[in-house]
Structure formats: C-alpha cells, structure tokens
C-alpha cells in the first residue's frame, strides 16, 4: 500500500554533506510503500508540520520524518504533527543527524548504508503501527483528604477557598493530628489549639467542607478522577466518590523504650510527654537536660527527623521562661536548624543561655540516679572533657516514624513506601505526587516535617488536586510521566489472553486487573488495562507468554520488523 509520505530534512546540508541523499531518494521512491518523498532544508524552521499534517490527514496516510534526534528538534516536529492531527501511530521519526551523519562523518559510504537501514526500519514500523484508542473520562468534583493534621487541615482549607468540595476523613475524634499533642508551635510560639479551633469552625461553617471523625477506611478503588472510597464514620458506613485523594495521615513519635533508662527512673521523659506536661501547666525545673538524636541517625533509622532540634530549643527556652533560674543543657550530635528563621531561633537560645554540648554517637550520655534522675554524665566531643551535669529532668528527643496505619493506607491506594515506611513521592521534581495519579501525599506521612512545612505541603497537594478536579473531563493520554502526552496504552487481545496474570503482577502502576470476561458462557479470567493508570512502559507485553498484550503504537510486528531491517 502506497501510503507513507517521507520527508527528508537536510538540516541545511548538515546531514547530506555526509549521507548521500540522492541514493536515499532513489531507494525510497522504489519502495512500494512510499507514496512521495520530499527533501526539505529545514523542517523545524519552515513551519511545515501543518502542511505535512494536512497532506497525510486524509485516508490512511502515514508520515516518516528523517531529521535530527528527538532531543534536538525531532520531538518538536512530532509535537507539531500531533497538533496538526497526526496521531502517534501514523508518524515515525528517524534520527539521521546525531544518530548517523554526525558520528559517521569519516565514513560517508557506511553512513549512507546506515541511513538506508534506518529509513527501512522506520518504514517497517509505520507499516505495522496501530492506534490505541484514547478514552475521555469525567472527573468527580470532590477531593478526599485523609487525615486532619496540619497538612490535611491546610489542604482542606485551601481547596475550600478554591471552591472545591472537600471531604475530610479523620481517624480521631477531633481534627489537629499531632498539632493537638504539642503545647506551642515553633518558631512563632503560638498555641496550636487556635489553629485547630479555626479549622473546626471553618469545617462547621463552610458548606464545601464535610468533616468525618472516627473514620475507618474499608476499601478504596478507582483511578484518577474516579476514586470510590468506602469508610465508616462513627460506626456509620459511608461512601465517597472523589476525583483526587490527598493522604495526610502523618507520622508518629518513636517511643524511646530502652534508651537512656527511659521508664526505669523517674523524670526521664520523651519530648512529647514534656509537651503534655506543658499543656497541663507550668513545668518548674532547676536543671533540665535534653538529649537529641535518641533512636535517630543510627543504623536502624539513619535519617534526621528535622523537627527534634527546633522542638528541644523551643522547650528549653520555655523551661527558662517558667523558671528564670533554670539551667538547660542540650546534648546533641549536630544541631539541625536550617533556614533563616530557625537559625535566628538557635541564636536566640544561645543568647538566652541554653548550653549546647556535643556528644559522640560512640560515647552517649549516661543517666545516673536511683529512683529519679540525679545527674547526666557526658563526654564533650569537642573538648574531650567528661562532665557531670546535675539534672532533675531529662528529655529524650525522638524522631518521627511512619504512622501505624501507613502500611494499610499504602496498600489501599497502591502507593509505594520507602525503607522506613514513609510514603514515597515521585522523585525528583514531583514532591507531593505519588506513582498513582490523583493520589497526593503531604505532611509527615511523606517525611518528618514541622507543622508549618506540613501546612505548606498540604497546600501544595491541594493545588495539585484542584488542578485535576477543576476540569470536567480528561483524556487518559494526558496522565503522562513524560513531557507531552503518552504515546499509547497497552491493549489486551481478550480472545487469546489466557489470564495468567503475569502482566498484572509486573505492572508497576497497578494498571492491569484480572477480571472475568463478560459474555455468555464465558468463565475465563482476562486482563483489563486501566488506561488512565497505564503509562506505556511495556513491561506487561514483555512478560506476556503469547503476545496477547500489545502496545499498538509499537507492537511486536513493528518491533520485530525493525529488528529484521536493522542490517538489510
């Protein structure tokens, strides 16, 4: 069938100075598949994509472009063709400049041979490429926020302000999350209960926010634009239909069990217990010692939790506020106070007389005392001196660890978790997105953060969700992991699919489900591709034992055809 139009670009004689274009032209015009050959001096500058598009639009026309590499201008020409109405299966780009002329400049004869092969490969690919139908889907206009800690509250507030309906699911009875456990937030030194109260009022008054407390999630299914989540709220079973899901389930404090005689002697408390004491009333102490990095930056948890240093400095100054004669030591391995605000906060603490002593991981402080703590023995890592500090309170700063329900939530939505159980973002450049489109993460569920940063992340996730649910419909090809639209989706031939499930097991986007084939007398399981989730990586077709799974834009015939023509 003569349906392929070939456009050869000389790139202002860059390519044809090496490659013999006359030979290419004569070879191509002899090919029975080629309808016409056009040689152009610069496809990218002539703006010819529109004309090319018009010339191949009718019927079953296909277009082969031989020009520079995709990274140079090739992809741009391809995008122009897409806009001109030439879908991916009807176009093919052959890289003759970077891939041939420029690297084989010393051997024009071989370069021409190679160019011929590359063109042949392109023609064969075009012969077999097929379209994979795109789908357009409606997007549910509600956003589900799971967790009403600082991140979840900020996300819900931001979404409501944007005019988006939000449903907030909170496992506890009240919003606030870990913000409800602390006495004051740093560095502004304000009472966080004000923030929680403000959100509670907003949730009660704003018709856009629906708040559910005492929630247990039963099931979650669906994909971007159409998530269905079943849950119980205060014993009542409910269902939410959401376009996007924001996960803000937070983390939890690592209990310092087995560290520094915690639980053995009195007045050795964790940071969060000190916060609880502050919330009850003033804490009057003469000599307080804070020990940093308890169970953090060690072999088991090598990460820095980032919030413990500011929290200790905040509480150290609070103890000095409540008893002006109090002496406070902070025993640390490094003080982590990034940014101008926190650095100023650190300086302020030093000016107020908080004493910082650095200890080595190999020689940690020792808690002395029989019933209650009496002294802390520490070796100053800088001077080498051994010091004995009188203490009537020892505060252990422990890191945040992944929440208890992180695993369950991760499994429900198919989100990856890192070695420490925190949800994994798409690294790099997509800090609040997950590998499942339409599911966003923020706050300490993602990584230990302060309440302030959790709020920032909550708002970021809210904006991502708003951008998705703000649209009425979306095409599956737009959920792309690559610049521009996806070039296709995997497609199953249900007649030949044996239902082995290899593809479903290997898919890293949970895009394939085994389902019973509908139809009378059909009791087979077959694979179904969820096009929204499919990212066209092709792992499924590589494990398919009988070729039932295909990527129509680059199917087995096209690939094998290209292999066969590689040295023809």
């Amino acid at each position, binding site marked *: 069938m003569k349906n392929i139009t070939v456009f050869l670009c000389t790139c202002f004689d860059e390519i044809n100075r090496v490659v013999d274009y006359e030979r290419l032209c004569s070879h191509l015009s002899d090919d029975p598949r080629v309808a016409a050959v056009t040689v152009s001096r610069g496809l990218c500058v002539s703006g010819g994509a529109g004309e090319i598009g018009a010339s191949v639009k009718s019927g079953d026309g296909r277009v082969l472009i031989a020009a520079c*590499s*995709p*990274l*140079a201008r090739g992809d741009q020409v391809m995008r122009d063709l897409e806009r001109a109405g030439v879908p991916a299966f009807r176009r093919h780009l052959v*890289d003759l*400049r*970077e*891939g*041939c002329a*420029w*690297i*084989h*400049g*010393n*051997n024009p004869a*071989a*370069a021409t*041979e*190679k160019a011929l*092969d*590359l063109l042949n*490969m392109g023609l064969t690919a075009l012969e077999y490429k097929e379209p994979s139908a795109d789908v357009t889907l409606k997007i549910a206009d509600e956003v589900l926020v799971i967790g009403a800690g600082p991140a979840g509250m900020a996300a819900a507030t931001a979404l409501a302000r944007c005019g988006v309906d939000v449903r907030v699911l909170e496992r506890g009875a009240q919003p606030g999350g870990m913000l409800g456990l602390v006495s004051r937030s740093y560095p502004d030194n304000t009472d966080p209960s004000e923030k929680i109260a403000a959100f509670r009022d907003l949730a009660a008054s704003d018709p856009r926010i629906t708040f559910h407390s005492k929630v247990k999630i039963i099931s979650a299914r669906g994909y971007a634009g159409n998530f269905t989540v079943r849950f119980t709220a205060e014993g009542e079973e409910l269902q939410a239909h959401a376009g996007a899901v924001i996960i803000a389930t937070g983390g939890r404090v690592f209990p310092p069990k087995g560290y520094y005689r915690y639980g053995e002697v009195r007045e050795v408390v964790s940071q969060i217990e000190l916060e609880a004491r502050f919330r009850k009333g003033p804490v009057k102490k003469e000599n307080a010692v804070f020990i940093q990095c308890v169970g953090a930056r060690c072999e088991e948890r090598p990460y820095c939790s980032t919030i413990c240093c500011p929290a200790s400095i905040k509480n150290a100054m609070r103890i000095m506020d409540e008893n002006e004669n109090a002496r406070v030591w902070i025993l640390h391995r490094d003080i982590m106070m990034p940014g101008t605000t926190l650095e100023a906060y650190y300086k302020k603490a030093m000016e107020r007389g908080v004493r910082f002593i650095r200890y080595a991981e190999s020689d940690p402080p020792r808690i002395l005392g029989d019933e209650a703590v009496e002294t802390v023995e520490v070796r100053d890592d800088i001077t080498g001196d051994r010091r004995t500090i009188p203490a009537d309170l020892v505060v252990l700063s422990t890191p945040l660890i992944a929440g208890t329900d992180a695993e369950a939530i991760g499994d429900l939505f198919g989100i*990856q978790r890192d070695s420490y159980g925190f949800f994994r973002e798409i690294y790099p450049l997509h800090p609040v997105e997950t*590998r499942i489109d339409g599911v966003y993460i923020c706050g300490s569920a993602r990584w230990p953060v302060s309440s302030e940063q959790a709020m920032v992340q909550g708002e970021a996730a809210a904006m991502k969700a708003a951008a998705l649910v703000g649209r009425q419909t979306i095409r599956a090809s737009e959920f792309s*992991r*690559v610049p521009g639209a996806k*070039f296709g989706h995997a497609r199953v031939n249900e007649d030949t699919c044996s239902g082995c499930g290899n593809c479903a097991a*290997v898919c*890293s*986007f949970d895009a394939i489900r085994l389902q019973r084939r509908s139809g009378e007398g059909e009791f087979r399981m077959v694979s179904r591709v969820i096009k929204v989730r499919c*990212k*066209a*990586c*092709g*792992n499924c*077709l*590589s*494990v398919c034992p009988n*070729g039932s799974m295909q*990527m129509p834009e*680059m199917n*087995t*015939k096209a*690939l*094998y055809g*290209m*292999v*066969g023509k*590689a*040295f023809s």
Partner: protein
Amino acid sequence: MAVEVSNNHKQQKATERTPRILVFACKWCGLIGADGAGRKREPLPPNFRVIPVECVGSVEPDAVIRAFADGMDGVIVMGCHLGGCRFNDANHAAFKRLELLRALLEGVGIGRDRLLVTFGTAHEGHQFTDVLRNFTNLIAKKESLDTSWTSSRARMI
C-alpha cells in the same frame, strides 16, 4: 589437529567482519546518551543501529532472541539508572528479565556476554561511546554466530 585448524580459520573470519550490533535504547536515558554522542560528533564505528523504545521494559526477550536470529552479533539494552526510571521500577523488572535471558543465551550457546544490559551508564555521550566501543571490541573477538539453522524458525511470526 584438523579441528584446531578450522577453529583458527573461523577466528580469523570473525575478526575480519565488523560485528553487527543492535541497541535498544530507552528514550529517556539511553537515547539521550546516543544523542549526546551525536552532538559531540564523536566518531563511532557505523556497525550499530539504535531502536528507540519508550522504556526498556518493553524490550521483549523474544525481540532480543529475534535479533540474534536475524544476524546480530551483539545486542545492547540501555536503560535508566536503577531507581531513576520514569516508569517506577519498570527497568528493575526489565533487568531481572534480561538477566534471566542472558543465562538462557549462555545455555543455548550464544553466550551471555553477547547481550549487554547497561543502566545509567548511557546518560552521557562519552559513556555511550565507551560502552559501544568496548562492546564492539568484545564482540569482534568472538566468532560470528551461526544463524543458518534459525532462518526458517525465526520467520514464524
């Protein structure tokens, strides 16, 4: 004695012929490496052809076997860094699959080193050229593959 002579003869034949190398390059790393080599105008032996794929996940083991059946002397699969794939862990899966295939290739007498799977080494142009040159040298030292017996079977699809 006679066997030795014929072996020597074959060896000589193999070195005379430039090996044919097929490269499956993922569009997001391997192909960018190839592109980088091109932009630097690094002179390269013209004995390789690149097939761009969206992700090395889509390089079917069958396609690699087909390449050997069609007369390639070596196949390179170039993907992104493990952990740096745009398609989550698609290249991990591909790596495991192709590693199994290499074992199979060894078993059927093609030899595991005729299939090179590189991840992350291809992102820069000079690395692409290094990989290609080293691999070409390696393959050139080998005897050429006898593909006469495959010609009828390989056309089955």
